[in-house]
Structures are given as C-alpha cells and as structure tokens.
C-alpha cells in the first residue's frame, strides 16, 4: 500500500508516494536516483549506505522510508553546496584517501556527521564513530589523515 511521505532531502522538501515499509537505501538509490549511497552488506555492518537523518548518521539499509517522514535527510550528493566541496570531501581528495572509492560516500558522510554535531571532536573521537565503516581497499591510513585535516578545518584552526 502506497502512502505519501514528506521529508526534506538535501535541503529540498519532497513528497513521495511509496510503500512506507521500503528501505530508505533503496528508495534513495532507485526512486530518487541518488546512487551515491552504496549497498555493501545490507545489515548495518559496513557503513557504505550511511546518510544523515536530522544530522545523525544512520545506516540507510536498516531504516524504512517511513522512518524519515517529516525529517531531514542528507546524502553524499547534498554535501557539496553550489559546487563547493565540503571540507571533508576536500580533505579526502587532498590526502588521496581513497582507492576503489566504493566505501567513500559512507565514510565522508559519517565523518561529516560526527564533526557537524561536535566540531570539537578529536580525530580519535571521529574514528571511534567510524569503526563501523569498512574499507576493503584498506585506504585507512589516508582516511585518518583526511579526517584529521577536516576536523582541524571544521574546528576553525
């Protein structure tokens, strides 16, 4: 049974007629054609599908579209503002913090979410929250460097 669900997506109000039990990840990736959020495990174990809902990082493979009704969803596509990359994105590029790139949207969104909620977070605190984000190419060292740089920038130092 379809229902109308309203929420804010990357700053825009939207209204969707959709089966409310469907997974947020797949509604994003198919109905809304926002394919930046990735499927990596489907069980909340890899972080590739991470998006922010009301500024909190959630694994979109574990949430229904119903659960975001009336809320604000931010995906990787919404991070850059008017073509201007977000500090976390910039730091990932500058530190060469990626290989195949498949895990990267989830990494970037999660790191941004932590820093957004607490700009004072140390990089260790950010990384603690990122323990769920897996990267098989093992770009960890560079990702850590990128996050350190982004954290610094977002703290304004």
């Amino acid at each position, binding site marked *: 049974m379809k229902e109308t669900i309203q929420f804010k997506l990357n700053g825009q109000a939207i209204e969707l007629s959709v089966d409310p039990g469907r997974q947020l990840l*797949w509604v994003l990736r198919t109905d809304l054609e926002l394919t930046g959020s990735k499927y990596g495990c489907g069980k909340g174990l890899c972080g590739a599908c991470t998006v922010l809902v009301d500024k909190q990082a959630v694994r979109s493979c574990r949430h229904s579209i119903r659960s975001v009704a009336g809320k604000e969803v931010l995906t990787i596509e919404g991070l850059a503002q008017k073509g201007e990359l977000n500090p976390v994105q910039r730091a990932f590029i*500058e530190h060469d913090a990626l290989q195949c790139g498949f895990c990267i949207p989830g990494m970037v969104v999660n790191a941004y979410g932590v820093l957004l909620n607490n700009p004072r977070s140390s990089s260790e605190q950010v990384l603690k929250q*990122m323990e769920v984000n897996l990267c098989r190419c093992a770009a960890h060292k560079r990702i850590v460097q990128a996050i350190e740089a982004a954290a610094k920038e977002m703290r304004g130092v």
Partner: protein
Amino acid sequence: MKDNSHSEIDVFDACLERNFQDIANPEAAFPMDRRDFVKLLGAGIVILVSIPRLGAQQGGRRRGQQLPDDLNAFLRIGEDGKVTGFTGKIEMGQGIVTSLAQMLAEQLDVELDTVEMVMGDTDRCPWDMGTFGSMTTRFFGPPFRAAAAEAKAVLVELAAERLSVPRDQLRTANGAVHDHAGRSITYGELTKGQRIVRKLDRKAVEDTPSEFTITGKPALRKDAKVKVTGEALYAGDIRRPGMLYASILRPPSHAAKVTRVDTSAARKQEGVHVVEQGDLVAVLHEYPDIAARALKAVKADFDLPESDLNQDTIFEHVLRSSPAGETVAQGGTLAEGEQAAEQVIEATYLDGYVAHAPMEPHTALADVQREKTTIWASTQTPFRLKESAARQLGVLPEKVRVITPFVGGGFGGKTSNRQALEAVRLSKAVGKPVQVAWTRAEEFFYDTFRPAAVVKIKAGTAASGAISFWDYRVYSAGQRGSEQYYDIPHHKTVVYGSGWRAGDGGHPFGTGAWRAPANNTNTFARESHIDMLAARAGLDPIEFRLQNLKDKRMRRVLEAVAEKANWKPVKSPSGRGFGVATGIDAGTYVAHIAEVQVNRRTGKVQVKRVICAQDMGLCVNPAGAELQMEGCVMMGLGYTLTEEIRFTGGAIHDSNFDTYKIPRFSWLPEIETVILDLKEDPAQGGGEPAIICVGAVIANSIFDATGARLFRLPMTPERVKEALSNI
C-alpha cells in the same frame, strides 16, 4: 559456477599462475575492421599500439573472431587537441586511470587533467585479457609512452610545416608546440581537420627509454572528485528505462540439489515477474528491495549431502586430493645438504580459505536486444565476459558490448562474471534490462576463495649458519612465490596443484586468484621457516638472511627496510616484538619489518608498526604506489589475524562482516613505506607485492615477542593462546 569454456579458463589461470609472464597476447586484436574503427575514433591523430610479446606465446585464443590485427592500446589526439588513451584495462582502485594518464600527459607535455582515459569498454577499447593488480603499469606503461612519443613527433612535424621551422628547433610545452621566436601553436590547431593514423611497431615500444621528466612525481588521483561526491558510477548505479532488479534463488550449499520449487505465491505479488529456467529461478521487480522481499515467498526444497569437511579437516583433505607434484626448482642433492646440516627443522604450515570481499558485491545490468546487447558489469575481465555472453546468447561477439564503470574493488575475485551472465539470461527472458546485484551473502557464497593450502618444509643449517638444504613442498596454493631466492646449495621446490578449481575430491567450492595468488601462502611458510632457522642458529633474523643472500636486489631492499626501522641486531625471541620478512612478487622485491604487542591473556595481537620497503623498478606514480603498499599492509592484516571462511561441506557459514572480520580503523598500525628510487630499471608490478609478507612478518614478530611460533593462518587469539601454552 563454472563457465563452460574450460580451455580459456585454463589458459587464463595458467597465466595468473605464471605471474603473467605470458600475458601479452599476440593474437589480441580489435574486433572490427581497422577502417571502421578509425572512423569511430573520429578525426585527429591516432596512434595504434601493439604490445611486444613477453615470454612464450600463451594468449587465450578467442573463438568466433577473425583477428585482423594485434592492437592492445591506442591514443587519440582529437581535433580539439584533447588527449584520450584507450585500454581494455579497468579501474578498480589500483589507480591506473591516473598512472596511465600521467604517462601520456608527461610525454605529451599536457596537463594531467586534460587527459581522458577510456577503459574496459569492449566497443571502444582493444581486446584485453583482464586487469589483475600488478601488471598494468608493467605491460602498458612503455607502449603508452611510446605512443605518446610518436604522437608528439607527428605534432612537431605538423608544426614544422605550419611554422616553416625545422623540427629540431621546436619544443612542446603546455599542450602546444613552440619555436625559438616565441611563436606557438596548440595541439588543437594542429590536429584540426587532420586524420592521421600511425601504427607503432614493436621495436618502437621496446626501444622506449625510461627518461621522463615528471615521472616519479606524485599525482593525485584523477577519479578522486567524483568518488567523494557520489557521482562516480559503479555497475549498480546505472539506470535504464524499464529496468528490473532480480533476486535469485540460491541453494544453501554448493553441494545441494534442488528437488522442488514453488513460485506460486511470488507470482501473485503485484509487479513481480518470475523466471524459472532450469537452474535459474528468479523474481524480478521494478524495485530491488521488493524483489528481495518477493524471493522470500518462493518455496524450495533441496537435497543436501552430508559432509564433515570443514575449516579444520580440510588440510588432510587437501593433502589427500592434491595432484602429483611438479618440481619447479632444484639444485644440488637434498641428501648431501642434509648431511652437511647441523640443525634441521621440519614444519608444516596451514592456510585457510580467504574471501575477496570487495566492498562492492558483484553487480551487472544487462540489456539484451536483438541488434546489440549491452552489459554494464563490475568485472576485471570485460572482454572475457563479452565472449561468454555472446556464446550464451548464441550470437556473434560483435553483437555484445560490455561497459565497465568504476569497479568497487576486485582483488582477483571479479573474473568469472557469473552475475553478469545471470543478468543476460534474465534480460533475455523478460525482454527488459535486468540488474543482478549480489547480496553480501551471495557474494560470500559465490566468491572464489583463496584456496586452503598446506606447505611442508624441511631445511637445515650448517655450523657456519649457512643454509645447507631446503626441501619445499606446497599443496594446493600454487607456484607463485614458491621459488626461494636464498643462496642454498641443495634445494628442491615441488608444487602440488594450483588449487584453483573445485574438482572431484578437490575444494568443496570455487577457489581462485586472490591478491598476489599463492604468494601469501608461500611467503608465510618460507619466511617463518627462515626465521626459525635463524633463531636456531642463534643469529639475528636480518643478519641471518643477509648471510644467506647473494641476490643483490633482495639484499638492497632488506638493507633499506632495516635502515628505515633503525634495526638493532638481536637474536629472536628478544621480547621486543619485532619481526622481519621478505618476498618477491610480480618482479617486485619487498621487505617488511613489524612491531607487535601480544596480550598473553586474551591472545590478541595488536600490530603497532609496519615498515615496508619495495623495489619496483621505475615507479611511475609514487603516490599511487605508496597508497597500494599501505593498502596491502592493512588488508594483509586480515588474512593474517582473522580472515578464514568457516564451512561444512559446501555450506558457507560466513555470510556477512559480523562473523567474517576484515581490518577496520582500530587495527591501523603506523605504516611507513620506502620505495627505492630506481629510475633506470623497468617498471614492475606494484598493486600486490606488499601484501605477501604480512603473514610472515607478523608471525615472526609474535615469535620475537613471546617465543611462540604459529604455523597456521589466520593467527586468531585462540591459536595464539594455544601456541603460547605450547612453549
């Protein structure tokens, strides 16, 4: 699970096995008429390249195609002056989209950003066997450079005519040709209206020198921006009008036979299409999550044979079922060497099945049409897929086009294209484009694991500390990395089977190439054993190795890592937790030093530091190479400490990352890398070598910390505790 073209797979596997020495395919060609093809490329300057054959001929002969030419890569400078490189290779994280472009940019004196790479598109790129970690730069670097040099020569010729200046008074810079008088003319102006095609002969490629101005300077990845914004497209991100997503019925075990299927409940669901074609039962829907839900309504019964084969009993099974051995290296006589030995050590090393587990599961979208079938696939072997898809559809290969978007990790696991062939079958059945994207459980189930393997070594040292004999037998891992490079008068290396295919009495499921195939297993065994000999001889493990090494490259790389680590010689176990290991892969020499901390109560090993030195010849993109080395070290910690597939018979018990544990942030050691600066040497592989030493360097560090020796990978806390209790 198996493709039916055995001969091709054999050739393919054989090539992997032999470290790709034979890979350059003399018969490789472009599947269309040269003229058509050049037309397709458009105007401008086109340089066609064939790669010189390396080693004996062993190309996969392709059926159903008359091969007019032997093209491997080409380069175009378009009418707008834009440089485009075309190769059948694919980008899966190894960074070749950057390193290949960098070679073109530097040779042609243009900005890296302006070079475009077209990769893994079977209609636009020349035939290619497949992309495997370490070989692209090695085999494609020189030809691309030679092509760029040729293109530059053509540009200079054109400019000489236009400016009426002799060629030797012209130089190129910033995408233009300049003369001494300060006049310049851009590549775009020069190529406008031109239609020049040159074919490079082999000789030109072979003669390409390795002096290049910006080679050696780091280049940031060309694909970084699209990958941080979510714009980068992977196979699962491609959308076609009317497409359906498929969920496929899977057996609970590789040995299971389906006895009954009932799809009636699924058929009743709105918008659900059901396909039942023999072994292929699938439900399809406009939305993937609804297809997955509908699959739950499919009822099936399976016949399941009993089996007690599991991750612990597999090694006996491997020994029993291995084929006859092949002696791959031999010198002196073992008996004589054993007589001369004062200390003899005999040991058996075990290595379990390891998954590739790329973050992107196998995915493909197929659009089967009468005129032309298009497949977007997550694959390391687009041309092989094109041929298998054509065969499956019963059409000529030119009726199939495979496009390879970015691939989300491969590591040797995305070569058999099962998911894409499923998508082809389903698309044909429903007459719409169909996406097959494996779930993580399917990914674990159909992975072609690194084979479980056994290595038996008997070796000894003379009173002087010189290794006097080396008797090495490896079962089911394969040859790569089995040849030892120490200076040992009496030695023999026997390889029993490559272990790459399940067969009667063989592996209970698919196995295959895993990053640096066979070499992780062989290097773990060899370097652990060398370490034991050193300890028994009462010598520092680096000194012991150097004493027994004549090979200059190996000595140099070992000395480099020792220097970087500021190594102070002590005999092991010293309690410091420092270990060393060396190895050779894909022509590259590596040496690692690690530092670990072992929790004696829990058995948990924390790796504090890994230093890795690499001699990879000329290094085209040091930034990329470093990234690969760091990745190898970190990824290697997985097979070293936790990764092992648990199973009963053909049933795989690990289906996700909760039980199959791969390295994550909290594991990250300090990683330092040293790349030897060797501008004069040919470029060697860089994507895999640094992973081969990780097992041994950690095992040797654990020994140095505790005196406990581990003989089985992964070295889980339980196994570490057990080894500690055996001291």
